[in-house]
Structure formats: structure tokens, C-alpha cells
């Protein structure tokens, strides 16, 4: 074999080898590309940018769609302007109040946005655009005072105190304002606001478990310690007449007390001991509603004054479901003291308070009007009434005329308003 022939064979083999290597490399790259493309597609490469609209998109649209009367999941509950019961929001609400005769201001739990709802016209307007999700509790005061409370990553309570300009029922949705404010001390436990002066009273607990009660101005200035206590589980109310009432958090079959805070920081007993004690003091008088829970029985008592004898009422409910009617609205020739309570249609049983507070049980309630002096109650809205829905009402509040009551459904924290009078 000549040298030339050998070279030709070598060259041929080399070319074939190179072609084979190139073919392998091509296939390798192709496979890798396919894999990359699949991964990129899974990550959304080249997908259209989401518009965040519709039922699962824009938070604002979602809020608007569910709080409007047209919300699909409210169905028949949204009703017409002639029905007594109106679902203002089907999404959870953190806090609310009547800020004018008929207007309700509320804070959405998912965003911290402040809305105003006008029941007579069934319209809702957003007032703020400061996003603060996961608002578990909110206080809505007059003149735009707002407190929003949440939980931080470490499980501690946070408190944001703010004030907005007076809400408008006609301002277009596109001009909501910023919710400006400041964060208060961390781990505030109980908190209440003086409805007349907008001062704040609150409790904090240190590492040893000792609790101190403080007051301050709305902006946190002029802080002053009022009392100290080895107990930390307090509920607190600041009444318009200046009284600060403290009572122990309730539990079934557990004795509790209620006290009036004295000027020297001491506690003067108001009520107790009573099993499952919970109270609703009145802003307009010294009347008190008291509920108890012992041996599976829930009872409600009325005291026309702190020194009066307690009258057992013929309805079984807790004070978390009751609200005082304004004194003017309740004024009659006999100057009755009136409250309205949501009463479970079936009497609560077992460890009702403990289970209810943990969201483990819910009831279907009817509304009753309580005459505190007479110790009587009459049903005003329940099964059989037009538009009735059995809701587990909590934290009701009544407008200044006594015509309507706003409340949350404890099962889903949705917000509702009910006309208390049957006549439209």
C-alpha cells in the first residue's frame, strides 16, 4: 500500500470521526436546549405579564368586587335597599364604627384599607391606599382616628395608630389618602380609647409577667402610668364619663372580677366573683350587662346601675353579642335603658366561651331588645322575618339614632348592618 493510499484512509477515518463527534455534540446541545426550554417555560418565560385582574388577580378589584352589593358569593344576602339586613363586606373586616348618623367606616383585614359604607344608598368608597395586610383588629374612632393591630413574624402584637382626613361619601375611588401614623409600643395587650378625648389607655406586660397600664395622647405623647398589676389578662373600656373599667378575660367555669380604676391606681371592685364573667358597661349610664358561663349554662344579667340588683334576663347570650342603644334613641316616657343582643337560636352548651373564642363553634343568632330596668327582652329580628340570615354576630355597634346595628359574623368576619326597626 502506498503512502498516499494510507494517507487517504487516515483522512477518511478522521473525517468520519469528526463528523461523529459533531453529530454527538449537536445532539447533546439539542437535548440541553430542550431541557432549558422546559424549565424556562415552567418558570413562565415568555409568558404574558399577568394583569392581576379578575377574581384571583388585583387585590383592589377583589376588594371592590366582594364589598359591593353585586358580589356573587353574597347571593340573596346582599338584598335590596328595602331589606333590613345588608352584607357590607363578605371578606374579613378588622374593625368598624358608625362615624356619622348612617355611615359606617371599616378597615379591611387583608389590606388595612379604610372604607366607608352608606347603608341607605348601599354604596362603598375606599378612603385610604396604604397597604398593610393581616390586620387582625382595628379601632375606628370619630374624626378619622384609626388603630390597626397585627402580628409580627415573631408572633408579637403590633399597634399602628393613625388619623385620616374626614371620610367622604362622594370622593371618587381614585383619590384615597395615605394612612399616616406611627407604631406604638410592641406587645400592647388590652387597648381602649376615650371616645370624648381620643386618649388611649393600654396595658403592656414585661418578661416577669407584671402588667402596667398607661394612658397617652393619640400620638403617643404625654404617656403616664396609671396602674400595675400581677395579672395580665385584662379587658379594658374607657367610658365617655371618664371611668376606666377593667375586667378579667373570661373562661367557662372560671371566676372573674371587674374593677373600676381609681385615681390612685388602685382597683375598686365593680362585680364578681362570677364564673365566666364578661361585662358590657354603658357609655351613657352606670348600667352594666353581665354574662356568665358555668356548668354549661350561659346567662345574661342586667344591672340598671352598679349598685342595683342584677336581674336575670330571659335570653342566654354573652356580652360580646350585645350593644347599648344610645340614650336619646331609647328615651321614652319611662326613660328605659335599652340594649340589643344577638341571641343564639339554640342555647349554647358545654364550654361555649372557650370554644367560641377559638373559632371551634358558631351559632345562628336572632336579635332581641333588652329593657334593663324591667329585666325583660323581646325579639326584634329572627327566623321568619324577611331577609333573615342566621349569623354568629359579634361586636355589634349601634348608630346614634338607634336605628341600625353593625356587626361581624364571627364565622368569617364579614361585616353586616341590620335595621333594628321593622318599618323601612
Amino acid at each position: 500500500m502506498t503512502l498516499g493510499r494510507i494517507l487517504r484512509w487516515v483522512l477518511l477515518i478522521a473525517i468520519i470521526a469528526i463528523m461523529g463527534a459533531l453529530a454527538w455534540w449537536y445532539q447533546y446541545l439539542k437535548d440541553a436546549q430542550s431541557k432549558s426550554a422546559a424549565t424556562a417555560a415552567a418558570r413562565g418565560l415568555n409568558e404574558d405579564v399577568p394583569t392581576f385582574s379578575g377574581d384571583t388577580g388585583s387585590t383592589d378589584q377583589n376588594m371592590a368586587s366582594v364589598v359591593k352589593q353585586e358580589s356573587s358569593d353574597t347571593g340573596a344576602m346582599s338584598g335590596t335597599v328595602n331589606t333590613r339586613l345588608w352584607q357590607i363586606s363578605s371578606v374579613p373586616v378588622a374593625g368598624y364604627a358608625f362615624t356619622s348618623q348612617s355611615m359606617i367606616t371599616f378597615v379591611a383585614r387583608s389590606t388595612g384599607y379604610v372604607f366607608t359604607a352608606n347603608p341607605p344608598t348601599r354604596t362603598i368608597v375606599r378612603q385610604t391606599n396604604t397597604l398593610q395586610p393581616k390586620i387582625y383588629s382595628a379601632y375606628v374612632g370619630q374624626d378619622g382616628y384609626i388603630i390597626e393591630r397585627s402580628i409580627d413574624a415573631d408572633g408579637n402584637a403590633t399597634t399602628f395608630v393613625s388619623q385620616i382626613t374626614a371620610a367622604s361619601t362622594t370622593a371618587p375611588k381614585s383619590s384615597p389618602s395615605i394612612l399616616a401614623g406611627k407604631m406604638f409600643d410592641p406587645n400592647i395587650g388590652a387597648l381602649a380609647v376615650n371616645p370624648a378625648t381620643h386618649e388611649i389607655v393600654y396595658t403592656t406586660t414585661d418578661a416577669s409577667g407584671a402588667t402596667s397600664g398607661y394612658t397617652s395622647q393619640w400620638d403617643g405623647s404625654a404617656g403616664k402610668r396609671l396602674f400595675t398589676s400581677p395579672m395580665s389578662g385584662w379587658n379594658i373600656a374607657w367610658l365617655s364619663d371618664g371611668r376606666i373599667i377593667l375586667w378579667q378575660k373570661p373562661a367557662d367555669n372560671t371566676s372573674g372580677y371587674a374593677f373600676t380604676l381609681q385615681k390612685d391606681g388602685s382597683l375598686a371592685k365593680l362585680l364578681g366573683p362570677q364564673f365566666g364573667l364578661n361585662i358590657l358597661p354603658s357609655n351613657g349610664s352606670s348600667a352594666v350587662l353581665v354574662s356568665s358561663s358555668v356548668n354549661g349554662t350561659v346567662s345574661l344579667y342586667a344591672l340598671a346601675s352598679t349598685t342595683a340588683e342584677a336581674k336575670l334576663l330571659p335570653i342566654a347570650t354573652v356580652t360580646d353579642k350585645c350593644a347599648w342603644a344610645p340614650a336619646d334613641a331609647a328615651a321614652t316616657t319611662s326613660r328605659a335603658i335599652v340594649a340589643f343582643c344577638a341571641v343564639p337560636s339554640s342555647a349554647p352548651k358545654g364550654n361555649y366561651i372557650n370554644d367560641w373564642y377559638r373559632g371551634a363553634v358558631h351559632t345562628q343568632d336572632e336579635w332581641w331588645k333588652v329593657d334593663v330596668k324591667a329585666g325583660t327582652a323581646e325579639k326584634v329580628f329572627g327566623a321568619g322575618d324577611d331577609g333573615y340570615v342566621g349569623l354568629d354576630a359579634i361586636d355589634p355597634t349601634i348608630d346614634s339614632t338607634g336605628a341600625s346595628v353593625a356587626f361581624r359574623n364571627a364565622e368569617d368576619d364579614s361585616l353586616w348592618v341590620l335595621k333594628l326597626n321593622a318599618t323601612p
Partner: protein
Amino acid sequence: MDSIRSIFGRLPPVRVIWAEYNGRMIPRIATIAAATVLVFSAMPAAAQTFTLNMRNVENSVMLNVTPQHPGPNQKVHIEAASSFVDLTNLTISWYVNGKKIGGGVGSTSVDVMTGTLGSETDIRAVASGIETQASASVALVPAQMDLLWESDSFTPPYYRGRALPSPGTAIRLQVLTHFTKAKGVSMPDSDVTFTWKRNGQIIGDVSGKGKSVAVIGTSMAPHNDIISVIAISSDGSRSGEVSTVIPEVDPALMLYEDHPLFGIRFDNALTDDSSVSENEMSFAVVPYFAPIKSVTDPNLQYEWSVNNIPVSSDARQGNEITISADKSKGDAALSVALTHLTNMFVGVSGSWRVMLSSGLPMKDVFKQTTE
């Protein structure tokens, strides 16, 4: 007889009263002084009479008050008793604040109402007979004591109820005495001695002067404890007692949805048979009344399983887990066991069945996603 007299010669003087009983004269001791002496005779009819002088006859009557520590405006039962005077045969007169309110032969008890808090009501009983005069008095100063308690067990922020004690937690108690001195001045706790009891047994290490606040531990197993406290002022003029029943419970694990916008849905606990309209959801377990400070305690160990398959939870938020049914309809049996590396009292578990729905066939294993 001489020996008996010699005995009496060394003893404090005693006066013997002879009384007729069934036609016979028998001796009765009028009072007791430093020593008790019983004088008897085998033949009382023929016995000689010893004239012995007894001291403190007039103080031989005691008044028993029930309840022992009355409150204000409370009915009190007062019983006169004596070990050495037969009160049933004596005329007893009762006086309240110096004013006679009743009495009669053998009238050994009376019911009296106490006054308002801090007021003093003087009760006096005078027993008189042919040769006996005795009296006793007591001052009723109603006391009001309030006993507050709570536990340091875990409850989430904004929980409306009381923190209940469970094994491994502590119970904090405070007694408010409302004792007043002259002119209505409040008596400080530093002037009062407190004796704390659990089920009748004195708790020595939390009792003492000024100890109006007590912190006690719980037992190994949940049950009800009766806690009582007796308070007595330094001068003995004021006293009171109050008790309460404290129920100890087991920690309760509650499962909630942890919504990305709404947060943990404490308003609606998931039950053993819950349905949700989502095919992916985050869950949070909350251990109510557990002996912990925070659910994010690094020493807490959450052992999750889904359909009996162990799954890992978020390293930062161990009490939470996210489950996706991956476009299928899923019945998820969730369970979690909670323990603590250093606290043996933390040991609780829970299980729930949650139906996640999206309309597609069910899968056996769920793809779990964590943040």
C-alpha cells in the same frame, strides 16, 4: 378528807357549787383557772362543802362566729358556748353595739347582720344565773377579699379568653384584701400575713407577711385545685378568707388556615372533617394553653404528617405547613405532634381531615410545598 384539803391547799382556789340532780346534791365546778380540779364525793349527801374561790368565772363563755370571716352586709350566726358553765340554765342576754336585741333562758345563739366594709359591730353576750355571771364579747369587722388568678400558658395575640393552666405552667394569684384601719385608711399588704393553701395544705414558700401575690406550679395531670388564702392583720383586728376553684386543662391544638392576606383565620377552626374550596392551602397549628412562650420557640419540634407520610415543615415557622392538591381533589389527613427539647410537659398532638377541592380525581400522595 385531810388529804384532799392538802391537795387543794397547793392548788389555786376553786369555788364549788352544789347543784341538785335527781334528788341528790352533786358538786359542779364553776370555772377553771390554771388547773382543772374535779371534786367529788362518793356520798354527796353526806359530803362536806368546800368553799373554794374560783377566778375568771365571768370569762368562761366563748362566742363562736359563723362564718369565721364574714363579709359586709352578711348574716352571721353567733353561738355561745362554755365548757364549765351550763348555759342552758342561764339567762343569756344579747347586745349589739350596746343595745339589747334579745335573749332568754338558754338563748345560746343569735343571728346578726354585719355592717358595711370596714365598719365594726360589737356583739356581747351576758349569761347570768343565781350565782353565776359570765359574759363574752366579739367585734365583727367585715372583710372583703377578692382572689384573682390566671396562668402563664400560651394564647395567641388578641385571644379573648383567659389563659388556662395546664401541666408545666404556672398559676399567678393575687388577693385583694380591702382591709381598712381607723378612719377608713387602707391597710397595706405589708401589715398583713397571708397563708396560702392548695386543697387544704399550706403552701409555705408563698405564704408570709405581705405575700398577697403567689405564683404556684401546676400538677402533672389536669384536675381542679381549690386554692384558698387567709389574711390576718398584724394587730389581729382584721382577718378574712377567700377561696377559688382553678381548673387545670390539657393543651388544645387548633388548626387554622393561614391566609396570605388575612393571616391566621382564628375565627374558624378546622375540624376533623373540613372542606375548603382551595386546592392549595397553608395551615397553622396553635397550641392553646401549652407551657410555651411562643409558637416559634426554637426548641419546639413539630412533627407533621400528611396521610401518614411524614413531611417537613417550614424551618422558620414550624407550626405551619402548606399543602397542594395539584389540581386534584384531595382528602388530606393531617396530623402533628408537638414536643419540646427541654420541657417534658410539652407533649400534645392533633389530627384533622381536610378536603381540598378542585374537581379532579384524588391522589394518594400530596405534593407538599413550603415557602
